[in-house]
């Protein structure tokens, strides 16, 4: 990009961020603070601007503004060419757009057929008595045992993988077997650009064995205490700075468990103000007013996944309080600018086809699938306050997790992550990959559910949180397929002995004893290529 283009891009970016910030609470807070500073007795009119500017920097407001700008830059959709249509800017490749559209249609059909079979409306207003009952039970929704046997999840990771495997680029010479050019042993045959080990080593260099990590040195027998105290001291200094990039850099080597909540809040710039509490209460009132079919799906999902997990069943009530509210949050719709997906549309009963009565269903545009609740479950270890927990979950979903269940060509989309996993395994563990293929156990079939759920529910909870530290710190989901490959490499000896698919799955069924960071370090930094 030439210098002229860059400066143009910068001014567009600045104008967009200013417009976004104008609508936030921070804007009025800054104005008020500036007024207070300007009214001080020793401020002269001639250098008012400079004095107020310095005063705002000293009192910490400039730092808050910086955090807000950093956050918006992370969510800003990239500048598109003036000629590209809206569809093209969401997803440049035509065949991927088509695959995503077909997938969405399939989900809609599944949801509609569930509606008609069970004669349950997608959404209805609750009668007053029912609203009152729900309000009383809000803090113990887990004790409710509604009959959900007729409901089934809309889709599971296995179904999604079946769809991904069928995606083919029509222009790719691989389509005819005789002409095959891509020599991938795996399931996904798409020419996506993924990083090789050398590039991953550069990206994740702070994870290397020569750097002190939380999760490695403080778990060993030799010098646990000093490492932990050192990290905590540094963490305290970082938290006092209240600066998102600094917190993000600190998290690259892991967060001490006690400081994790505050650290994540700073990285994601989630500041819990009174306005946020009011907003949460407003969403809660929406839960009382309307009953959605999606609520039953969430109930069922929580009962099937989180309550059966030793680590998370105690948090069942909190999960309902987060997920039911999440479905009604229209702020989540903003993330669709960065996504290849489009939210499902519907019409108010009786007004089919009239655009003024078109609504988005569910209000946040996200239809949960089997295992969706597991995105929120680990966060209960970080915050006990459901309101702060909710805002952190929402931010995590809007930045990262939405990419795990939409078909897109984005380098961190689930398709690219699968290609990365298979290419890493084929390059660095060719014997293992070949053996598993011969046995009939394609590695991606086993690893896909780990990647799609970001390993939630498969690892021990403290290890999972250390993994998610790195997702936030390096701002990338690529660590998920790298870890998947590292797990296969770690259990290689047992896997080479298997001769059936079931045996392979049994070797990899239980990951709760794994220590995530050491096996990542071995896989990435001791490879010779």
């Amino acid at each position, binding site marked *: 990009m*030439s210098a*002229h283009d860059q400066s143009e891009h910068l001014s567009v970016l600045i104008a967009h961020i200013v*417009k976004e910030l*104008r*609508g*936030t609470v921070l804007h009025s807070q800054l104005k008020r603070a500036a007024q207070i500073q300007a009214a001080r007795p020793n401020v002269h009119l001639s250098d008012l601007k400079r004095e107020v500017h310095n005063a705002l920097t000293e009192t910490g407001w400039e730092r808050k503004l910086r955090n807000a700008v950093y956050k918006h830059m992370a969510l800003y959709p990239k500048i598109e*060419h*003036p*000629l*590209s249509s809206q569809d*093209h800017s969401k997803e*440049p*490749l*035509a065949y991927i757009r088509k695959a995503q559209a077909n997938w969405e*249609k399939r989900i*809609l*059909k599944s*949801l*509609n057929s569930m*509606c*008609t079979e069970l004669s349950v*409306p*997608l*959404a*209805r*207003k609750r009668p007053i008595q029912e609203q009152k009952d729900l309000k009383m039970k809000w803090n113990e929704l887990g004790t409710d045992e509604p009959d959900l046997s007729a409901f089934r999840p809309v889709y599971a990771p296995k179904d999604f993988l079946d769809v991904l495997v069928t995606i083919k*680029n029509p*222009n*790719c*010479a*691989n389509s005819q077997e005789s002409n095959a*050019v891509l020599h991938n042993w795996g399931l996904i045959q*798409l*020419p*996506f*650009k993924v990083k090789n080990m050398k590039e991953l080593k550069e990206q994740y260099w702070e994870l290397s064995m020569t750097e002190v990590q939380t999760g490695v040195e403080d778990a060993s027998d030799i010098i646990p205490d000093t490492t932990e105290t050192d990290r905590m001291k540094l963490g305290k200094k970082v938290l006092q700075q209240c600066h998102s990039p600094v917190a993000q850099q600190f998290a690259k080597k892991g967060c001490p468990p006690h400081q994790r909540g505050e650290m994540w809040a700073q990285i994601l710039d989630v500041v819990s103000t009174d306005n946020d509490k009011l*907003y949460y209460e*407003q*969403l809660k009132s*929406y839960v009382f007013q*309307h009953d959605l079919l999606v609520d039953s799906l969430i109930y069922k999902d929580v009962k099937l996944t989180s309550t059966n997990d030793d680590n998370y069943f105690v948090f069942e009530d909190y999960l309902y309080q987060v997920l039911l509210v999440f479905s*009604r*949050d*229209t*702020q989540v719709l903003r993330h669709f600018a960065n996504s290849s997906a489009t939210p*499902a*549309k*519907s*019409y*108010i*009963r009786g007004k*089919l086809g009239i655009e*003024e*009565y*078109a*609504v*988005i*269903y569910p*209000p946040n545009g996200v239809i949960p699938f089997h295992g969706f609740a597991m995105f929120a479950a680990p966060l209960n270890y970080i915050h006990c306050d459901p309101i702060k927990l909710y805002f952190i979950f929402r931010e995590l979903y809007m930045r990262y997790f939405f990419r795990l269940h939409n078909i897109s*060509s984005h380098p961190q989309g689930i398709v690219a992550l699968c290609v990365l996993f298979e290419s890493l395994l084929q390059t660095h563990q060719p014997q293992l990959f070949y053996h598993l293929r011969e046995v009939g156990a394609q590695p991606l079939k086993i690893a896909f559910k780990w990647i799609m759920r970001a390993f939630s529910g498969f690892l021990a909870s403290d290890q999972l949180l250390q993994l998610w530290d790195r997702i936030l710190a390096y701002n990338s989901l690529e660590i998920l397929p790298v870890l998947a490959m590292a797990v296969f490499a770690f259990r290689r000896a047992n896997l080479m002995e298997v001769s059936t698919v079931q045996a392979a799955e049994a070797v990899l069924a239980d990951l709760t004893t794994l220590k995530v960071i050491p096996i990542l370090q071995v896989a990435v930094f001791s490879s010779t290529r």
Partner: protein
Amino acid sequence: MSSKPLNCIIRKPVTLKIGEPRTDFHSGAAVIEVAMPNIKSVDLGEITFKNSYTAYLTIKVRCNFKSAETTSKYGDNKWKTILQRYPLMPNPHCEPGSQDYFTINRNMMCSEANKVAAVRFLLQQPSPVWNHFTIDEINLYEHKLEAPSPVSLPYWLLHNDEEDEELVEKNKELHIEGAPPVDNISAGLQQLWALSESVRANQTAASLGRYDIDGCYEINLLSYT
């Protein structure tokens, strides 16, 4: 780039082959000829197109200089390169860049595209991964020098002083009994207008967060369109 694209005839890409025309040889190179029928010569400003799996692009133009102006002995038929092997796909084997929109403007060209009579696009795709490669939606735009827009001078600078006095006398006759002077009214109105404009400019686009329509959110089925 607000101007209309130039009227041109774009021929289908011709794949370059070596040796016998009937041998099946994928050279990975193709040429698109663009002729401009009604235009004798034009200065090119911008070229926009949509890529379809082309890795490198070279653009050559044939300039229409009068024979006295050229020093080259080839005269009018020389093809000049204005863009040399520009990468459209950073990695020819992989997807990024394969279906993107591109704009080539004058800063990116290595020589001046003045008095252009015909354009040739040379497409290269060395990777065997792809079946077809081309570029679509080609549009050429003329280079217009920015003429300085006429600056509007204030009324009082252009106006003749003699006529002014007559108008002032006329204004004095329009005085209405009991009403404040016209200037005060107009000053007050201007302040009101300025206030309303500043409020309008500060309106936030933040949504209220309501997902229902007039309190109603009764939905039966999802829509497929």
